[in-house]
């Protein structure tokens, strides 16, 4: 930022505007360096530098200029860059504040803005009518991939996305308040102040940098005896000083959700040249408000006439804003075309600020006399009851053609800018998103809020207020306070919608309804003629009101024209649905904190750091990082897994099983509850013993499994699968709370209380023995549990095995997990103890035919299918799933049953998920009789092994089947699921 009195554009008006002109800042526009003042938007800065042409339209590539001074801008859509990574396309130049060093570029032009080859579309405009794409790209079908699609892809979308990752951070804030005021114009400020003074907690937000709304464009209004903008400044200052008020500028209320939840997007750093890197770029506010005061104002409409889109055609209120707030002149000979009083005041302001008004054309034949008198005083020519039917000028408007309503007196007036007003459209977007009902105000050609669906009140312009006094009254009524006094204010009376002037019947008509989507009045008419009878269909067929417009500019004209064409009243046609967001919101704001390491939770065990230090490779299991395998230098995964598997069977392996789900079931009814939740019988399970439990859903399919230990008559230590822990607990709580609420039993998750160290293998007992206190290891048969001490800390020691080896699972309080692991490792390593990961665990259990729920089962597998009928208590009269198991399909012949598979070539390892057929030579589609669920190279077996679900599998032992693959079918033989130690001698050793 340079401190100088250097000029920031030749079109600055002397002694006008509220910007601080002490300092200039520099930015570039299409590579050219320009100056601006602090507080300028890109739009005001460009206009100050005499630049009206800012972009090319989407479909016809017509030259377009700045139409508005706010978020409704459809034309001046530009690309803003800070550096190569921080670049954002499709930014509205009327919203983006200029900062020192900003790089702004125009879009949708090639090779240059002033000469664009795509503009031939403009000449061919008659051949690109509404629904052009639907009609044209239909046949031949073979053209789709190589001709139509590439063409559409190139033509579709404005701007280009950045290619680098977004380096910025984003934030979120949940907030609660008594009153949320959306919109910081006069009504919003007055209401926020009144509510805050009454002690309510208040949040006031406004999308602009400066509060005041339309008052920013006003230099005449007075509130409470002072200039309106002074009143705004002191009110905002008072609000900022109050503890119970939060004041947010540059913050757009973009979505209204159920139960008075309103989403705000706060732009924190987009206007700062060199922001603090710790600051988030944007912050999402999720505000839950007692009452929402919707003070979103109104948006001025353009008028529909041939050539209404040329650069330097601008909304009257925008021109007034540029003059009075930014001190920027938009032209030296300005035409006015209006249907509304407010544009007259804008014309007078411009005229007095050195932009002489060439002519005021008003569609109305009767204009308030005081306006005519003022025009007369200023020497401005006026033509009431006239219309503009054409304009000229290629890159900027140079003339307008005016004629009387009856078509007489056609006359061309040279101008260099044209300000227009078709009246004002209340911004009912937020109200409409809240599902409130709108009513049509036929007298003023607009929709107004009617019945509310949420606790909200519309005040000011969005509620139809046409004067400052009305707006302040609304605010007072909504807050039960006394309205502020005001004087010297204009009005928003007068409107025109749906009329289009000029070449209305010509194919070359360029009377635009929607500038952004290049939709003309004739497109709407064509859509109706072609059978689009619903306004929702017209919208989609013509694309009017789509993209960032969302009905801000185009809605009323499109609707009125469609109504005329259909011969129906506007309220009968209804409005298209207003959807969030009101203005575009970045993905960064929506995801806010959830990026990088906060994208999702990463869960690690107490032993994770040891595994990391010992070179482990991890795999994701749900949110957990689990040790996959421990490669030694030079080993690939297979080599590491082979070594880990062999070592576990020959000496011992050590495995981190801490992620296993654990639930403590406690209470006098604990055993009754276990009987209900699991298929197994539990009454006779002795204290100190364990049992493998199967849990079903009510439909009879396997839901989870795990080993359960009985610690006392009334206390069970239940384990679940790693991924199943939360849903199993939820499933249990559901039955307990809603079906059996009187049972005296309670469930507590202890998954993370215990670190679990599995020591498995022939040397397991020898390794752990010296650490065990208060427990007699010789009195611990397979499937037993004891409480005592291990390494001096409290333990639940279980003798269980998921490997088929003699094995123990040592539960110790989690904080001791790593230290205890290291003690075991220190002692075990010289004895051949080898750490193994989940891959070796999978192989070891598959060698024993132990299933993994979710791998060998898929939610359609019954206990019998998985050879687990033995785990069902045959005498039980109830358990979850008991009835489901009797369903016809579950007891039918021919179900898929779990079997082992051996490939005829022992070195061939099947692919998991591969389909199985009887005859590989049958015609396609082949009859698939099952699929591979688990498949590994087993170093211990010296061959590949697999598990599979196959129709009538158990009856096909020894049969030869085939697994068709891309390179030909693989022959397999059906076998038992247990590949090692079928009589369990190692297990019980």
């Amino acid at each position: 930022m340079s401190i100088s009195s250097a000029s920031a554009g030749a079109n600055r008006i002397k002694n006008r505007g509220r910007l601080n002109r002490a300092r200039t800042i520099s930015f570039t526009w299409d590579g050219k360096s320009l100056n601006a003042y602090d507080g300028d938007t890109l739009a005001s800065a460009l206009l100050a530098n005499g630049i009206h042409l800012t972009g090319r339209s989407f479909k016809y590539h017509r030259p377009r200029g700045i139409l508005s001074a706010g978020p409704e801008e459809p034309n001046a859509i530009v690309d803003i860059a800070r550096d190569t990574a921080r670049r954002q396309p499709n930014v509205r130049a009327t919203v983006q504040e200029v900062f020192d060093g900003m790089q702004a570029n125009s879009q949708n032009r090639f090779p240059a803005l002033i000469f664009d080859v795509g503009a031939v579309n403009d000449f061919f405009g008659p051949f690109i009518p509404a629904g052009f794409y639907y009609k044209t790209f239909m046949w031949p079908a073979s053209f789709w991939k190589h001709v139509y699609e590439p063409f559409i892809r190139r033509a579709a979308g404005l701007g280009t996305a950045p290619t680098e990752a977004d380096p910025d951070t984003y934030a979120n804030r949940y907030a609660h308040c008594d009153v949320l005021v959306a919109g910081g114009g006069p009504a919003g400020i007055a209401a926020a102040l009144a509510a805050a003074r009454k002690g309510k907690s208040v949040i006031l937000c406004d999308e602009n940098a400066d509060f005041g709304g339309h008052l920013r464009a006003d230099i005449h209004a007075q509130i409470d005896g002072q200039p309106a903008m002074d009143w705004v400044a002191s009110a905002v200052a008072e609000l900022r000083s109050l503890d119970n008020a939060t004041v947010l500028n540059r913050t757009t209320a973009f979505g209204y959700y159920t139960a008075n939840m309103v989403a705000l997007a706060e732009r924190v750093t987009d206007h700062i040249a060199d922001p603090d890197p710790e600051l988030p770029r944007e912050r999402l506010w999720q505000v839950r408000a007692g009452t929402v005061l919707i003070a979103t104002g109104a948006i001025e409409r353009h008028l529909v006439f041939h050539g209404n889109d040329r650069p330097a055609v601008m909304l009257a209120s925008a021109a007034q804003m540029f003059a009075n707030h930014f001190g920027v002149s938009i032209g030296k000979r300005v035409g006015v075309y209006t249907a509304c009083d407010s544009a007259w005041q804008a014309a007078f302001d411009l005229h007095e600020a050195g932009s002489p008004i060439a002519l005021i054309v008003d569609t109305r034949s009767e204009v308030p006399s005081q306006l005519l008198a003022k025009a007369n005083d200023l020497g401005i020519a006026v033509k009431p009851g006239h219309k503009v039917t054409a304009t000229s000028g290629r890159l900027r408007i140079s003339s307008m053609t005016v004629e009387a309503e009856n078509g007489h007196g056609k006359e061309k007036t040279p101008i260099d800018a044209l300000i227009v007003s078709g009246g004002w459209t209340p911004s009912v977007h937020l109200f409409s998103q809240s599902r409130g009902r709108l009513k049509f105000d036929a007298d003023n050609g607009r929709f107004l809020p009617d019945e509310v669906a949420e606790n909200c009140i519309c005040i000011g312009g969005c509620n139809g207020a046409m004067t400052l006094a009305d707006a302040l009254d609304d605010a007072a009524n909504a807050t039960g306070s006394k309205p502020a006094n005001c004087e010297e204010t204009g009005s928003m009376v007068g409107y025109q919608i749906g009329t289009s002037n000029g070449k209305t019947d010509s194919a070359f008509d360029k009377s635009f309804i929607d500038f952004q989507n290049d939709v003309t009045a004739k497109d709407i008419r064509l859509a109706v003629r072609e059978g689009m009878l619903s306004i929702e269909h017209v919208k989609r067929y013509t694309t009017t009101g789509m993209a960032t417009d969302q009905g801000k500019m185009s809605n009323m004209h499109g609707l009125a024209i469609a109504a005329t064409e259909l011969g129906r009243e506007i309220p009968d046609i209804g409005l298209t649905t207003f959807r969030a967001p009101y203005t575009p919101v970045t993905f960064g704001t929506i995801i806010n904190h959830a990026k990088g390491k906060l994208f999702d939770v990463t869960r690690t065990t107490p032993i994770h750091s040891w595994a990391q230090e010992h070179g482990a490779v991890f795999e994701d299991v749900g949110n957990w990082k689990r040790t996959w395998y421990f490669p030694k230098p030079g080993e690939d995964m297979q080599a590491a897994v082979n070594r880990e598997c062999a070592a576990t069977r020959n000496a011992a392996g050590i495995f981190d099983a801490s992620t296993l789900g654990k639930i403590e079931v406690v209470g006098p009814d604990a055993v009754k509850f276990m009987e209900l939740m699991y298929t197994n019988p539990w009454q006779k399970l002795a204290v100190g013993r364990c049992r493998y439990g199967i849990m079903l859903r009510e439909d009879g399919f396997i839901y989870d499994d795990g080993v359960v230990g009985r610690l006392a008559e009334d206390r069970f230590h239940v384990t679940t699968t790693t991924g199943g822990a939360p849903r199993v607990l939820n499933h249990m709580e559901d039955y307990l709370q809603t079906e059996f609420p009187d049972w005296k039993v309670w469930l507590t998750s202890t998954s993370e209380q215990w670190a679990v160290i599995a020591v498995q293998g022939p040397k397991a007992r020898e390794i752990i023995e010296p650490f065990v206190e208060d427990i007699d290891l010789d009195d611990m048969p397979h499937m037993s549990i004891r409480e005592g001490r291990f390494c001096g800390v409290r333990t639940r020691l279980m003798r269980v095995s998921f490997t088929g080896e003699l094995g123990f699972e040592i539960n110790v309080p989690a904080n001791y997990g790593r230290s205890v692991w290291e003690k075991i490792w220190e002692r075990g390593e010289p004895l051949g103890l080898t750490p193994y990961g989940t891959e070796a665990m999978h192989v070891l259990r598959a060698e024993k035919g132990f299933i993994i729920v979710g791998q060998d089962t898929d939610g359609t597998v019954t206990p019998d299918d998985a050879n687990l009928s033995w785990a069902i208590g045959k005498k039980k009269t109830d358990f979850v799933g008991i009835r489901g198991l009797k369903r016809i399909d579950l007891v039918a012949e021919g179900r898929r049953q779990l079997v082992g598979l051996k490939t005829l070539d022992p070195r061939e390892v099947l692919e998991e998920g591969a389909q199985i057929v009887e005859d590989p030579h049958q015609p396609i589609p082949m009859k698939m009789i099952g699929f591979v669920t688990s498949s590994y190279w087993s170093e211990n077996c010296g061959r590949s092994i697999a598990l599979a679900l196959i129709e009538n599998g158990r009856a096909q032992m020894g049969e030869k089947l085939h697994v068709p693959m891309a390179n030909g079918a693989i022959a397999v033989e059906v076998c038992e699921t247990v590949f090692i130690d079928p009589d369990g001698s190692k297990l019980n050793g």
Partner: protein
Amino acid sequence: MDDVLQIEPLAGRRFAATGIALEPAPFCERFSLRAGPEEVAEVGKEIGIALPVKPKSSKTLKKISALWLGPDEWLIMAAPETGLSAKMSKLDGTLCSAVDVSHRNTAIYVEGPNALAVLNAGCPQNLSLTAFPKGACSRTIIGKSEIILLRESPERFRVECWRSFSDYVWNFLVDAGKSAQI
């Protein structure tokens, strides 16, 4: 073997920014206590603290804290030297369930004028002093993790979470801490 080390998951971490300081809480003993409405009074007597029965409330007596988490659920916490384990182990299972979860959870102190803003970056509850006064506690959410929140003073909160979520919760609070200042 007294050389077995206890390692708290967030040991050694510290963070401070404008108006906010984060600090891992020292280890404490914790029990998940469950009891039905008929047994509440008696269970409370056994452990020497009348269990709070009002939703979202807690009680601290003789360095033992009891947090209401649900109509039949409390989190009981005390420093190791308080002897909480001994008291809890005497409870009769016919009355209630007391399960040691000392190592399941860990905790972070969030303190400073911006504490509320930091928590509200990810916690959707109304944490104003009227809605969530001193002593208020609740199981809730921060970002994508479940937590138990206890307000120890207007500007000091204790955030309890499961140990494997603590790295996420810590990082979330740090990220929020950097952006809390408006």
